[in-house]
């Protein structure tokens, strides 16, 4: 996919602010700790204030789902780290989802989307969700008019998807205690969290995969989760058909992780303490378990330190992104 870096994002975001606040005195900025240069905007779906606003409405609106029961926000709850407290979300017709709802936080920094990276873009990710029927939008004159004005056509699958994707790219989380600590505020992290940070980068090996400013290497690893089942979810293998990918899943960002229990693609862990204990045990043996996975020998206090650090990754999403829109 052809991508440009975030110059377009910066300009368009400024346009959003200008349109909404009527002034440049409070220019929109990525929250502290995020890398503007890493943002990925497709050339064929530039960000505009109007498109983002429409995408937000579509994200929240159940009326264009097949049976009028779900919206994107039904499974990606802002107050729950843009994930779902339920082990499985519920699609149209009451059907449970295959896996736990992945967070939508900081998707603008990834090309591949979903637990398996099945989608090559956010647009692709939205398109694969068969819950929505673009024809339903034609019954809502405001959407019909907005899409025609923006894209020169009435509602189509592509135009609706592009609007939703543009909005999803606005869901960014930063300015966490960790970011403020990195920026020089030594008091932003507790002593416990500082010890956790040191462990995160060394003995606990977390940073080997949860790397970089967004705490993900965007890669696929088998940590054994699910491989203890009779009929395991083979994860990335289902997409790539490559043996090495059996049981591997895409490393999720850890930003806002404390907000979005339960954890793992099968939602097996209710708390971060359980997650840390799992890694301390070295995961679950399987044929392609990553060699990175081995017993860590963390003491109970060290595990608490790690949890404190993970909690310090809870950041801020711009308020106007997270608040519900007025629907037409």
């Amino acid at each position: 996919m052809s991508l440009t870096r975030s110059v377009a994002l910066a300009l368009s975001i400024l346009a959003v602010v200008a349109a909404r606040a009527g002034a440049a005195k409070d220019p929109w900025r990525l929250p502290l700790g995020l890398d503007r240069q890493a943002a990925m905007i497709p050339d064929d779906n530039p960000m505009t204030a109007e498109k983002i606003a429409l995408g937000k409405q579509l994200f929240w609106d159940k009326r264009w789902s097949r049976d009028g029961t779900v919206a994107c926000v039904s499974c990606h709850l802002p107050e729950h780290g843009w994930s779902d407290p339920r082990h499985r979300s519920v699609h149209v017709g009451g059907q449970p989802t295959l896996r736990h709802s992945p967070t939508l936080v900081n998707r603008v920094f990834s090309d591949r989307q979903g637990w398996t990276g099945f989608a090559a873009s956010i647009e692709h990710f939205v398109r694969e969700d068969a819950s929505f029927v673009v024809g339903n939008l034609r019954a809502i004159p405001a959407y019909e008019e907005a899409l025609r004005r923006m894209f020169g056509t009435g509602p189509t699958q592509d135009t609706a998807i592009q609007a939703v994707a543009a909005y999803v790219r606005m869901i960014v989380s930063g300015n966490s205690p960790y970011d403020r600590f990195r920026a020089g505020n030594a008091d932003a992290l507790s002593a416990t969290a500082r010890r956790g940070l040191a462990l995160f980068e060394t003995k606990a090996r977390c940073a080997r995969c949860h790397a970089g400013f967004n705490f993900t290497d965007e890669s696929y690893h088998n940590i054994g989760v699910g491989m203890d089942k009779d009929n395991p979810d083979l994860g990335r293998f289902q997409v790539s058909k490559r043996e090495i990918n059996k049981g591997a899943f895409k490393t999720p960002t850890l930003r806002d992780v404390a907000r979005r229990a339960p954890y793992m693609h099968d939602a097996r862990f209710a708390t971060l303490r359980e997650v840390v204990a799992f890694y301390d045990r070295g995961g679950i043996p399987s044929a392609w378990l990553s060699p990175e996975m081995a017993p860590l020998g963390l003491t109970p206090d060290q595990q608490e330190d790690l949890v404190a650090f993970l909690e310090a990754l809870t950041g801020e999403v711009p308020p106007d992104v997270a608040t519900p829109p007025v629907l037409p």
Partner: protein
Amino acid sequence: MMPGGRSLDHARWSAVAVAVSATLVVAAHAAEIKVVQKDRAFSVKQVTVRVGDSVTFVNADAVNHNVFSEAAGAQFDLVQPPGSTQTVKLIQPGRVEVQCAIHRAMRLEILVTP
């Protein structure tokens, strides 16, 4: 040195020279290029080889790697536990993009010339 010794030595050296030249010619047409995977990166981003050459991948990391290509005439998908080596022979001219199915940032371009 005997009168005929010079020509004998000359003949011997000539033979050695021919042998060395032949070796170099063979090497030029069937070289084996080593690419190391270390710190989740290939040691080079691009390498040019000739048809018939081989590329040997050496996993110097402590993690699993993989090399795969879907290029015409150069399709492979090799699993590499830590410390392992895998060799691929390139038999068709063209551009071969090599990736790791685990680590998305790992990419290598092999240009295979006639």
